[in-house]
C-alpha cells in the first residue's frame, strides 16, 4: 500500500521532466486476473516519458515506432512490449510472487520493507489463508511458518492448537506466544475470524520481539486485519460446507473374539469363565446384540461457514466491515461449535494532521460438549467399552455400564453413547475487542500517537453430568467469568531521511495494561431428577459456591531506533523497561536488543546477474516472561471444609496453603542470538532464508515441588536454565511462469533442540508426578541434559517365551522424547487460466508418543480389564509362545514402559483444493458481480505414519509441554471434504 502510494506520487514528478516530441499515440487497458489495474505505470523505456492508468485501467501515451513500452505495477511482474504501430496495446500483468510479502509488520505501528528487516520474522499472508477453509486462525500457521510448531492436540470442534515458537523455554510456566491484533496486545488468537486477516507476522528472534519485553520470550504473533482502500467498493460473499469423518479407526476384536479373550484371561486368573459368558447360549445372545461403538460414537460431521465483507473508501476515509457465521459439528455425536463475528475497521483523516483509526470486533462462540477432555473420554469409550454390551437393555434403558460383570474385575468405562447423549457441557464466550488510535503529526517527520483498547470477555460454562447408576451421583453446575483487559499507550515517532542516504526512525512509547478477571461458580451434587439439567442447581443435595478475582498490571516504557544507510547497512536497537504487579519486591525489568543487517546486493562491488538479493543479518536480545498467577508469590491460607464435622455446624477449616511464598520472585529472562541469511535469485523469483538461533532462558519461573515433608506442595522460584538451539529454512519460488500457467512453491523446515541445562540447586531431575485424564500417571520426567517432554520408565525387552511374562531391563531409564527432530511444510499453488490448485503437506519427524490408549485397550490396566484391541490376537499363549504380546495373565507387566512408546512421525496432506474462477460471464454481469470462485477441497486426506493409534498428533497433555505426546485416547483429527464459493462484487 505504502509503495503504491509512493510510486503514484513520484511518477508524476518524473513526467514533468519529459520533453521529447512523439509522433503517434497508443492506448490500451492494463488488467490482472481479477480486473483492471488503476495507477499502473506506463513508461517509454530509456526515457522519463510516462503516464499512469486511470480508474478503469485505461491509458494513453505518445510513442514512436520501435519504442519499448514498460508496464509496471507494484506486486506484479514488469512487462515490456515493443511498439510496432498497434492501435491498442492491452496488457495483463502477472503477480510477482517474490514481492507479495514485501512489507513486514514488526509491531507498535511499524512496518518495514523486507529488505530492511534485520530480525527473524515469518509471514503468512491472506493469499495463503484463502486456499484452505479455516476454522481457527492458529490452523493458518501450521506448516506455513518456519520456526513455529503447531500441534492439534484434540479433534474436538473449535479446539485450538498448541503454538510454540522455537521450542519451549519454560518448564512449568506458559510457553504460549503473545498475540497482538491490530495493536491490541495479549488477545486470544482464536478470537479473530480467519477470513478477516490480512497478514500474520511471527516475531521469532529477540531482536524483533524484545520491543514487547516481558511477555515476548515465547515469540510474538502480530495479526493485521483487512482494511478498506481508496477506490471502488468491494463486496465479497463466501460460503462453504464441509463433511468430516475421523481420519482413522482402531482395529478391534469381533464380539466373539472379545468373549474368548475375556474368558481366557478370567480362567487364567480364577480358573473359571466370566459368569455372563459361561454358556454358549449366553455367548450367542451377547454376540447377536453386539455394537460397534466406533460407528456409534462418530458420525459424518457437517460444518457450514458464511462470510460477507464490505470494503472501500475515499481519499479521507476507508472502511472494512465483515460478518461471519460458522457452525461446526464435532466428529463425536452431540458435540458442536458455533461462532458469530462482526468486525468493523474504520480509518479517517480528520484533518491534514490528525488521523483516527478504529477497530471493533464482536465475537460470540458457543460450544456444546466440545471440551477436549470430554472428547477424550468418548474417544476412549468408543474403542475401550466392550461391544458385547448393547446401548440399551431390554426395557429401553441405557446400559450405563458394562454387562461383563463378575469376572476378576470390571471395566470402569461408562457407555460412551450414554455419556455423549445425556451429558450437557456448554460454553459461551461473548467478546468485545475495541481499539482506537489517534495520530497527530506534530511537525514534519514527528508524530504523536495515543491509543487505547479493551478486550472484554464474558465466559459462561455450564455442565450436567448424568449419573452412572443413581441420581445421587448427578452433578451439575454453572460458572461465569469476566475478563477485562484494558490498555493505553502514548507513542512519539520520528522518521526522517538525511542527505538521501541516511534514514533514521526513532520511537518512544509509554504503555500500561491491566487484566482484571472475576469468576463465580455454583455447583451441585445429587439431584433427584435429571430433567432440570443445570438450570436448577438449588435442587442439589450438596451445593457449593465459589468466587474469586485476580488482577495484574503492567507498566512499560519503550524506546526503539532504526538506522538505515542507503539500504546497505541496517542497525536496529530497542530497550524496554517493564514493571509487573505479580512480583512483590523486584517488579521492574529491563530488556534490550540490537540487530545489524547488510544488504550485500546493494553494494557497488556486487554485480551478480543471477543473485538478486544477498543479505546477512544478525541480532541479539533479551525478552522476559512474567506469566505466573497473580498470588503465586504470597503466603496464603486455604479453606479445606470439613463438611461432616461430626454433626456440628461450622465447617470452615483453615490450614496453610499448598504453595510456599516467595517474596523474591522476579522475571524469567530469555537471551537469544539469531543469524540469518537471505538469498534471492533471478529477480527474487526464488528466495531462500536460513536462520540459526540459540536461546538460553535463565531464572526460570519454575514451580518446584518442595519436599512434601515440609507440608507444602510447591513454590514458584526463579531457578534453572533451559536452552533451545535450532534453525529455520524457508524456500519459496515460482517454478513455472508463463502466460497461462503459474506454479508457486514454498517449503519450510525447522529444527529445534531443547535441553534442560540445570534445575534447582544440584537437582538433576524432577518427578513431576503428572497425571492425565484424571488419575492416569504419565511417564514424563524433567532431567538435566534432556529436553522438556521426555519419557522415563521400564525398558521393555519382549516376552519370556516360557511363561508369557514380560521382560524388562533391570533399571528404568529415558525411553522416549516427545520433541520432534524436524517439522516441515510444503505448499504448492498452481493456476491455469481460471483454475487454481493448492496442495499443502505438513509433517513432523522424530518424535515419540506414549500410546497409553493402546495399553488400556489391550487390557493392561484394571480400568479396562478385558482388552478390546485386535492386537490381542498376537498374545502369548501356551501354544503360541513366540507372540509379541505378553500373556493375558502375565503378572509383571508395566504400563510406564517402552512397550508403549511409538514413533509419532507423520506427513500429512493437510490441504488439497481445486478452484475455478468465473468472470465476464453474462450471469455474473446480470447480478452485477465481478467474479465467482468455486472450489472443492479436502483436508487431512492422507496421513502417512507408523503410529498405531488414531492420530499421532493428538495429546491429552494439552498446553503442558512436560506432557507432550501422551495419548490416552483423544478425538482424532478429521478427514474433511469441502465445497465452497466466493462471490465478489
Amino acid at each position, binding site marked *: 500500500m505504502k509503495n503504491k502510494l509512493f510510486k503514484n506520487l513520484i511518477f508524476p514528478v518524473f513526467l514533468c521532466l519529459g520533453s521529447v516530441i512523439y509522433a503517434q499515440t497508443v492506448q490500451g487497458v492494463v488488467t490482472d486476473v481479477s480486473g483492471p489495474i488503476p495507477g499502473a505505470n506506463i513508461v517509454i523505456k530509456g526515457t522519463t516519458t510516462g503516464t499512469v492508468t486511470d480508474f478503469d485501467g485505461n491509458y494513453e501515451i505518445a510513442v514512436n515506432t520501435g519504442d519499448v513500452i514498460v508496464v509496471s505495477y507494484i506486486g506484479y511482474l514488469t512487462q515490456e512490449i515493443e511498439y510496432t504501430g498497434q492501435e491498442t496495446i492491452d496488457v495483463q500483468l502477472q503477480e510477482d510472487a517474490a514481492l507479495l510479502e514485501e512489507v513486514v509488520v514488526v509491531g507498535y505501528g511499524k512496518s518495514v520493507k523486507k529488505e530492511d528487516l534485520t530480525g527473524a520474522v515469518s509471514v503468512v499472508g491472506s493469499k495463503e489463508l484463502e486456499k484452505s477453509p479455516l476454522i481457527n486462525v492458529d490452523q493458518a500457521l501450521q506448516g506455513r511458518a518456519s520456526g513455529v510448531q503447531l500441534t492439534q492436540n484434540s479433534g474436538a470442534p473449535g479446539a485450538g492448537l498448541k503454538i510454540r515458537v522455537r521450542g519451549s523455554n519454560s518448564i512449568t510456566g506458559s510457553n504460549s506466544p503473545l498475540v497482538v491484533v491490530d495493536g491490541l496486545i495479549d488477545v486470544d488468537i482464536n478470537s479473530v475470524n480467519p477470513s478477516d486477516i490480512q497478514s500474520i507476522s511471527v516475531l521469532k528472534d529477540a531482536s524483533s520481539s524484545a520491543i514487547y519485553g516481558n511477555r515476548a520470550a515465547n515469540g510474538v504473533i502480530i495479526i493485521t486485519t483487512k482494511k478498506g482502500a481508496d477506490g471502488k467498493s468491494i463486496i465479497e460473499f463466501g460460503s462453504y460446507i464441509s463433511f468430516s469423518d475421523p481420519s482413522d479407526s482402531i482395529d478391534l476384536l469381533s464380539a466373539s473374539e472379545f468373549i474368548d479373550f475375556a474368558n481366557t484371561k478370567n480362567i487364567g486368573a480364577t480358573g473359571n469363565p466370566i459368569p455372563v459368558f459361561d454358556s454358549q447360549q449366553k455367548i450367542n445372545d451377547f454376540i447377536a446384540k453386539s455394537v460397534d461403538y466406533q460407528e456409534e460414537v462418530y458420525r459424518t460431521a457437517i460444518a457450514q461457514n458464511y462470510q460477507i465483507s464490505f470494503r472501500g473508501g475515499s481519499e479521507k476515509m476507508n472502511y472494512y466491515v465483515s460478518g461471519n457465521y460458522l457452525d461446526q459439528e464435532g466428529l463425536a455425536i452431540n458435540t458442536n461449535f458455533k461462532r458469530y463475528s462482526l468486525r468493523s475497521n474504520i480509518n479517517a483523516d480528520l484533518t491534514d494532521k490528525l488521523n483516527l483509526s478504529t477497530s471493533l470486533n464482536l465475537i460470540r462462540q458457543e460450544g456444546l460438549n466440545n471440551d477436549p477432555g470430554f472428547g477424550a473420554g468418548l474417544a476412549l469409550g468408543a474403542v475401550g467399552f466392550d461391544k458385547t454390551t448393547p446401548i440399551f437393555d431390554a426395557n429401553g434403558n441405557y446400559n450405563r455400564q458394562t454387562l461383563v460383570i463378575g469376572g476378576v*474385575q470390571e471395566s470402569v468405562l461408562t457407555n460412551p453413547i450414554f455419556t455423549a447423549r445425556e451429558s450437557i457441557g456448554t460454553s459461551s464466550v461473548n467478546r468485545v475487542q475495541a481499539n482506537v488510535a489517534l495520530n497527530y503529526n506534530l511537525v514534519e517527520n514527528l508524530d504523536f500517537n495515543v491509543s487505547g483498547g479493551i478486550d472484554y470477555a464474558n465466559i459462561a460454562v455450564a455442565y450436567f453430568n448424568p449419573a452412572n447408576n443413581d441420581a445421587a451421583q448427578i452433578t451439575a453446575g454453572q460458572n461465569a467469568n469476566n475478563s477485562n483487559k484494558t490498555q493505553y499507550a502514548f507513542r512519539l515517532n520520528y522518521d526522517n531521511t538525511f542527505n538521501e542516504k541516511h534514514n533514521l526512525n526513532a520511537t518512544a512509547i509509554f504503555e500500561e495494561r491491566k487484566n482484571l478477571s472475576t469468576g463465580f461458580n455454583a455447583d451441585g451434587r445429587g439431584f433427584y431428577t435429571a430433567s432440570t439439567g443445570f438450570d436448577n442447581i438449588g435442587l442439589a443435595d450438596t451445593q457449593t459456591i465459589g468466587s474469586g478475582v485476580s488482577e495484574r498490571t503492567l507498566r512499560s516504557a519503550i524506546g526503539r531506533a532504526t538506522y538505515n544507510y542507503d539500504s546497505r547497512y541496517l542497525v536496529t536497537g530497542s530497550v524496554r523497561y517493564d514493571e509487573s504487579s505479580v512480583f512483590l519486591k523486584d517488579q521492574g525489568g529491563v530488556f534490550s536488543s540490537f540487530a545489524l543487517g547488510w544488504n550485500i546486493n546493494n553494494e557497488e562491488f556486487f554485480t551478480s546477474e543471477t543473485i538478486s538479493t544477498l543479505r546477512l543479518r544478525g541480532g541479539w536480545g533479551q525478552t522476559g516472561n512474567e506469566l505466573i498467577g497473580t498470588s503465586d508469590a504470597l503466603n496464603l491460607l486455604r479453606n479445606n471444609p470439613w463438611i*461432616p464435622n461430626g454433626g456440628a455446624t461450622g465447617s470452615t477449616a483453615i*490450614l496453610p496453603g499448598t504453595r510456599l511464598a516467595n517474596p523474591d520472585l522476579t522475571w524469567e529472562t530469555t537471551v537469544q542470538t539469531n543469524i540469518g541469511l537471505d538469498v534471492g535469485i533471478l529477480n527474487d523469483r526464488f528466495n531462500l532464508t536460513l536462520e540459526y538461533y540459540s536461546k538460553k532462558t535463565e531464572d526460570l519461573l519454575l514451580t518446584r515441588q518442595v519436599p512434601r515433608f515440609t507440608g507444602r506442595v510447591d513454590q514458584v522460584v526463579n531457578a534453572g536454565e533451559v536452552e533451545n538451539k535450532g534453525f529455520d529454512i524457508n524456500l519459496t519460488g515460482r517454478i513455472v511462469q508463463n502466460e497461462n500457467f503459474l506454479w508457486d512453491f514454498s517449503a519450510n523446515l525447522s529444527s529445534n533442540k531443547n535441553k534442560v541445562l540445570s534445575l534447582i540447586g544440584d537437582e538433576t531431575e524432577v518427578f513431576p508426578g503428572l497425571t492425565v485424564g484424571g488419575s492416569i500417571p504419565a511417564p514424563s520426567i524433567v532431567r538435566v541434559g534432556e529436553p522438556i517432554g521426555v519419557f522415563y520408565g521400564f525398558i521393555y525387552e519382549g516376552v519370556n517365551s516360557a511363561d508369557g511374562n514380560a521382560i524388562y531391563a533391570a533399571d528404568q531409564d529415558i525411553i522416549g522424547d516427545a520433541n520432534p527432530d524436524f517439522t516441515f511444510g510444503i505448499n504448492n499453488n498452481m493456476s491455469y487460466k481460471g483454475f487454481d490448485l493448492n496442495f499443502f503437506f505438513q509433517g513432523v519427524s522424530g518424535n515419540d508418543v506414549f500410546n497409553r490408549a493402546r495399553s488400556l485397550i489391550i487390557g493392561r490396566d484394571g480400568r479396562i480389564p478385558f482388552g478390546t484391541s485386535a492386537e490381542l490376537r498376537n498374545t502369548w499363549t501356551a501354544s503360541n509362545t513366540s507372540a509379541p504380546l505378553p500373556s493375558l495373565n502375565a503378572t509383571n507387566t508395566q*504400563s510406564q514402559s517402552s512397550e508403549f512408546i511409538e514413533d509419532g512421525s507423520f506427513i500429512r496432506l493437510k490441504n488439497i483444493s481445486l478452484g475455478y474462477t468465473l468472470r465476464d460471464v453474462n450471469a455474473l454481469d446480470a447480478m452485477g458481480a465481478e467474479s465467482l470462485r468455486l472450489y472443492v477441497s479436502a483436508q487431512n486426506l492422507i496421513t502417512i505414519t507408523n503410529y498405531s493409534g488414531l492420530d499421532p498428533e493428538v495429546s491429552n497433555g494439552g498446553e503442558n509441554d512436560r506432557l507432550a505426546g501422551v495419548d490416552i485416547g483423544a478425538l482424532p483429527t478429521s478427514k474433511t471434504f469441502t465445497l465452497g464459493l466466493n462471490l465478489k462484487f
Partner: protein
Amino acid sequence: MKRQLTSLARKMVYLSLFVAGVISCDDLAIDTQGELAAEQFYSSVADIQSGTLGVYSVLSDKLFANSENYCHFWAADDRTAATGSNKTFYLEYDQMQPLDTNPWQTNGWNQLWEIIGAANTFLDNEEKMRALVQGSDEEILDRSLGEVHYLRGLIYFELVRTWGTIPLLTSQADVTGQEPLASFEEIYALIIEDLIFAKNNLGPTSVNGIYRANKWMAQALLANVYLTTAGFPLKNEANYALAAAEAKGVMDSGIFALEPSLNGIMGVQANNLSEDGNTEAIIAFPANIGLDGWNAGNYQAESILFGDKWVEIAFYNNFPEGTRKDFTFDISDTGQIFYSIEKFGEQDFGNVNKDINYLRYAELLLIYAEAQIRATGNNSEASALSALNDVRERAGLTAVASATWEDVVWEKAWENAGEWSRWYDIIRTETLDEVNAIRDPYDNNLTPLGNGITEAFPWSPIPANDVSANPNLQK
C-alpha cells in the same frame, strides 16, 4: 524554522502535561483481593476454631478413605491385590518390592505431612493466640491445643510405623526442606509427649462434633504407642506395662463396650458415630462425602468391587471357622476370596457414607491382653484372658484358659482382618519371615515375593521426589 521549533516546543509541553497527567510512577499494587493472608490469621477465637478444624480436614475425608494412599498394608498377609492390572501399586507391596516412585504411596506421605504442617503452624502461633484469649475462651484454646497435639502424635505414629526414620519437624518456621532424619527414639519421644499432653488437656467427651479428639482417644492411642515402642525397632520392653496401664485406663472408663453382634461394629451408615453410633468405636473418622468412585476405597466396599483388596489364601485357611469368618469374608462364584460387604460397608458407588474405624474397642482389649501377658510374663493372667475371651466369645469361639502373646497377636489378625493393624503388628513382632513362610503356594506363584522389604527393614521407601530434593533422606 525558528517559528516551527517554538511551535514544536509548545506542543511538546502540552503533550508532556497530558501524558504526565495520565501516568503514575507508584509501585504497582499487589493482587491480594479475596485471599486469606497467613500473617493476619490466628488472631480471633473464630480463627482458633477454624485453624483447629484445618488440622483435621486433610485426615478425615481424604486420607484414610482413599484406596490410593496406603499401599503398604498390602505387604501384610491379610491382603493381596489382583494381578496384571492397575493394581501395580499394591502389588509392589504385596510382592515386598516397592518403588520409591509409587504414586499412591507418595499420596499418603504427602497428605500426612500436610497435617503435620497444619498442626505445627497452629502450635507456632500459640503465643499470639494466648495473648488474645480471656476467660472461657482460654478453655477453647487449651482444648484446641490438646486436639492439635493429639493429631500431630497420631500422624507421626503413622509416619514412623510406615516409613521408619523420618525428619522430625516441630515448627514450620524456618523449614528449609533439608532437615535430616531423626532417630526412632526422638520421634517416639515426641509422639508420647504429644499424646500425654492431649490426654491431660482434653476432656472425656468430644466437643463441637462427635469425631473430635477427647481424652480417651488420646489415651487409647497412647496404649498402642507404648505397645509398639516395646517391640521392634525400639524394643523398650518396659513399655508393655505402660501400654497395659493406659489401655486399662480406657477400659475402666466404662464408656466403651463390645457390640453384642459383629454386625454392629461398622459396615453401615446407621452405625456411624454421628448416626445411632456404636459402643465399640474409640477412634473413627467420618467420611460421608462424595469421593471420586475410583478413589473411594481402602476401607470401603468399592475396594472389594474393584478387586483392590483380596485375601491371601493361607490367611483365609488359617482363620478360625465360625460366625466371625462368615462375617468377614465372601467367596465369589469363581472361588475368589473377598472381604465382605457386611464388614466393609454397604456399597454406594462413589460415596463413602460410613465411618472409617481406626481403633475399635476390640483392638484395645487385645492391646491390653498382649501388653499384660508380656508385662507379667503370665500366660494365664486373668484380666488379660478376660479381655481376650471377650473378643473370642463374640466371634463364636470358645474361651481359653491360657494364651501366649503370639496367640493374642493372631487373634488380633483375625478380629482386625483387612483393617489397620495387621502390617504394623507384623513389623513390631518381627514375624514377617514366619508369616511369609506359611504363604500358600498359589499366592506365591501369583505374586512371588521379592526382598525389598524385609523383617529387618520393613519400611516403605521415602518418595523419590523428597529424597531427590533432600539427599539427607537417603537411608
